[in-house]
């Protein structure tokens, strides 16, 4: 008869407990890491438009106020649902006003619909008539 040797039950239990604890720590850290991005700091804040003016054939200036509780960074802009040529990447602190310059092509007498989008997906929609 062949006699085979194995580790004792106690060592096996200790080994499995260690394995479970290590697995738990790994799972916990990965879950916290993955889920930490979902918090209220990244929830859409509130932007408010003071006023807007198309200043020339290529530039629109919007005075945008952050009435939320977290800073907001303007990231993208759309003019009549098409991406604007460019938009200033402006960070607006809570209860602050910033000037946002949106560049595109504007024709006098035409009303344009604007949408500015922040990195946290806060959006502000407004329209302005070009009358420079």
């Amino acid at each position, binding site marked *: *008869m062949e006699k085979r040797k194995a580790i004792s039950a106690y060592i096996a239990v200790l080994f499995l407990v260690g394995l479970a604890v290590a697995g738990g720590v790994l799972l916990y850290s990965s879950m916290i890491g993955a889920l930490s991005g979902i918090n*209220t700091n990244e929830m859409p804040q509130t932007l408010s438009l003071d*006023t*807007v003016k198309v200043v020339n054939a290529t530039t629109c200036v919007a005075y945008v*106020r952050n*009435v*939320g509780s977290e800073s907001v960074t303007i990231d993208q802009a759309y003019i009549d649902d098409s991406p604007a040529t460019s938009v200033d990447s402006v960070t607006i602190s809570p209860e602050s006003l910033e000037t946002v310059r949106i560049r595109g092509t504007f024709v006098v007498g035409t009303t344009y619909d604007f949408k500015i989008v922040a990195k946290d997906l806060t959006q502000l929609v407004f329209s302005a008539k070009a009358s420079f």
Partner: protein
Amino acid sequence: MMRKRRGISELYASLMLLIIVSSMGVVIYSYTVETTLSYEQYFVEKEARDSKRALERVSIVNAYGNTLSDNVNVTVYNYGEFDTEIIEVYLNDELVNTFFAGIDENIESLGLMEISFQSPLPIIEGEQYTIIIVSRIGVTYSYIWKK
């Protein structure tokens, strides 16, 4: 011939599984509670802010200006139930930078406030101007003023 194999007992195995399930449960529970509370706080604050914005009542009752000095005076009436403040003024979409009085000052409910400022544009007799005032909570009010 039957071989005898050794392993951990059912009791240990059950205990280990119990520990694993319990720790996962604690992690998920604490995360869920924390997230739910954060969302609740966010929506409560947002609702309070939106309600205040909706309930604010301000109007410009009068405006006059000086064509020589380009100084403009605007009388603001707060007919809402909350106090307010005017923090920004625009004249024909131009931001006003120089104020003499009335800006950032508390306007009591049913109170009047005169805001005096240097116009960023020349004030010309017979011209029409759009005055926009902005309250502390970001509500805008506009007024067409003909000099």
